């Protein structure tokens, strides 16, 4: 009989780190098996973004004037990718609230596993799921006329950005989920939070067309930076040139720095806060 039992907690920092990664991956595996076994949940999660693409593509295509780049499809799809990443990460909050309700979090907390593992596992499995979502959205985009025009590397950059955004929002949603706890309340709270964040941004329309009091908010909304970076990487500088003035609103460097900075700052806040909430659950 093998005796691989670790009968006492690890003491070294490296060992602890490795065990935390191991525990996180085990939990991620468990979540992914769940997604695999009940595919209907994933199917409906995929249907909703498709609906978004079709609605915006065909309902609003000619409604907006002064679209940077001139073509709404090219403008819209990178925004949809980011929007999807954010909406897709809401499952983190709901999944955690469901685990809480079923008593699974109690079990996990009574086990000698890393305190970060349940959250890291959930955000990681949601990241994997969101990768599928992004790839599907790109496929749908190609069907309705979208094309990456800046080469493979830039296209991979878009995918990386979108995944980073979804991972960041997963941790925000984990915090909300653990703070609110009841599944239904979490669901309502998350959507009330996510809708204004996404809609008061350049995700679907240029900021210039919004009500004056919203414009400064939308302009400094990180979602706006992320969408514009995704656009820049998809179709080039034309994506950020204001058709009215002919001037580029951002440089690529500026967009990259601001986008990455927002992601780093949000992660630096919400990872420790959510882990603390997990430790202190009652």
């Amino acid at each position: 009989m093998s005796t691989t039992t670790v009968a006492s907690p690890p003491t070294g920092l490296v060992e602890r780190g490795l065990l935390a990664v191991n525990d996180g991956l085990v939990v991620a595996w468990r979540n992914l098996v769940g997604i695999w076994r009940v595919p209907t949940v994933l199917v409906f999660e995929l249907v909703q973004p498709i609906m978004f693409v079709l609605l915006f593509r065909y309902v609003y295509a000619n409604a907006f004037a002064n679209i940077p780049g001139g073509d709404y499809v090219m403008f819209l799809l990178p925004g949809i990718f980011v929007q999807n990443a954010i909406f897709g990460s809401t499952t983190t909050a709901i999944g955690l609230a469901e685990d809480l309700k079923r008593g699974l979090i109690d079990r996990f907390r009574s086990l000698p596993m890393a305190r970060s593992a349940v959250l890291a596992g959930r955000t990681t499995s949601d990241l994997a799921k969101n990768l599928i979502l992004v790839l599907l959205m790109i496929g749908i985009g190609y069907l309705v006329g979208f094309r990456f025009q800046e080469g493979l590397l830039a296209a991979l950059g878009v995918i990386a950005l979108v995944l980073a955004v979804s991972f960041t929002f997963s941790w925000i949603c984990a915090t909300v989920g653990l703070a609110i706890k009841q599944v239904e309340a979490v669901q309502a709270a998350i959507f009330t939070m996510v809708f204004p964040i996404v809609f008061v941004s350049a995700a679907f329309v240029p900021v210039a067309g919004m009500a004056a009091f919203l414009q400064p908010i939308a302009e400094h909304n990180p979602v706006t930076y992320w969408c514009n970076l995704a656009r820049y990487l998809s179709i080039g500088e034309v994506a950020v040139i204001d058709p009215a003035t002919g001037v580029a609103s951002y440089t690529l460097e500026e967009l990259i720095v601001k986008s990455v900075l927002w992601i780093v700052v949000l992660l630096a806040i919400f990872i420790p806060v959510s882990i603390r909430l997990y430790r202190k659950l009652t």
Partner: protein
Amino acid sequence: MPETIQVELPELHQVAAFPIRASSDTDGHDTQEAVPGSHIFEVALGCCLVGGPIIRTEGVQKRFGKVEALKGVDLEVQPGTIFGLLGPNGAGKTTAVRILTTLLDLDGGSAQVAGMDVVRDAEALRFKIGLAGQYAAVDENLTGLENLELVGRLYHLGRAEARRRGGEILERFDLSDAAGRPARTYSGGMRRRLDVAASLVGRPEVLFLDEPTTGLDPRSRTDVWSFIRELQADGTTLLLTTQYLEEADQLADRIGVIDVGTVIAQGTSDQLKEQIGGEVLELHVSNRDETERAAEVLKGLGTGEHTVDPATGLVKVQAGRDGTSVVFEAVRRMDSSNVWIEDLALHKPTLDDVFLTLTGHAVAEEADTGAEAPRKGRRRRKEART
């Protein structure tokens, strides 16, 4: 040279307070005091730790906002025994279990499990304990075996070892046939078994079962009882909570009765029954409207403790030592006041009687506003249970 070392321990658990002597022969020559730091002291201390309670709490307090969930709980559980924490809903049973299993911080007092402090040594303690909570905490989408594998891997067993152990435990819990099926297809009883199985993957020294049979049909309940006994036979210490007196009576070596955050009695089932000190007269009146009147008529009989349940026409009288004369007197009084009796019985106290008596007192102490309060409290409890 000494050939054998005898260590005299005045009394387990109190060893540190007494001088410890180690002598090399029976008449005490070559005697050595065990001073802290010496080898003999270590030996003695080791014996003491082995001999002491495996769960010990002292004055554990917990509050949630304004609600005092635990108001100073003292418990002692000896290794290898089953301890039943008995109390109604909201008494604080689950809070106590959650503190002992490191899920909840305590606000006052201290608690040790397996020689470790539940707060300071929480991380190490989690290797020694198992918990099956009130809900069957299994992942619905994983198969039975995968559920156990998940837990095993979170104990940092290798994948192969986690599977092997999982398979072994499933067999023992009679779940081998369902091992490959998602837990969502399991019946309530099977789920509960799987839940307890999961809590055993880490081979815990102390197992906590929070209401292990709540919501189970009678047959599944008997199954759960039998594997709880098996676990004890294997040397596991168990602390289980229950609202069922019968369950505590059947399983527990010792019982702690908990009500509104306080342990109001602790002892074996027999010791608790002894506390009531005598027999119980149970009497049903024919006309339920006359229940209160019957109680009035019987006032002052026995030890003076009454329980009234107008819904079933039941009056219970704690008869004390001389049950027979209480029966005669009761019949005479009923006769002279023309209250008709449906049936009348004198029996030894059950745990049910103990419980009602104990919690009745507890309510009285808390309310402390007059003689009416305790009886009301007791009646409400009784109604809630019938």
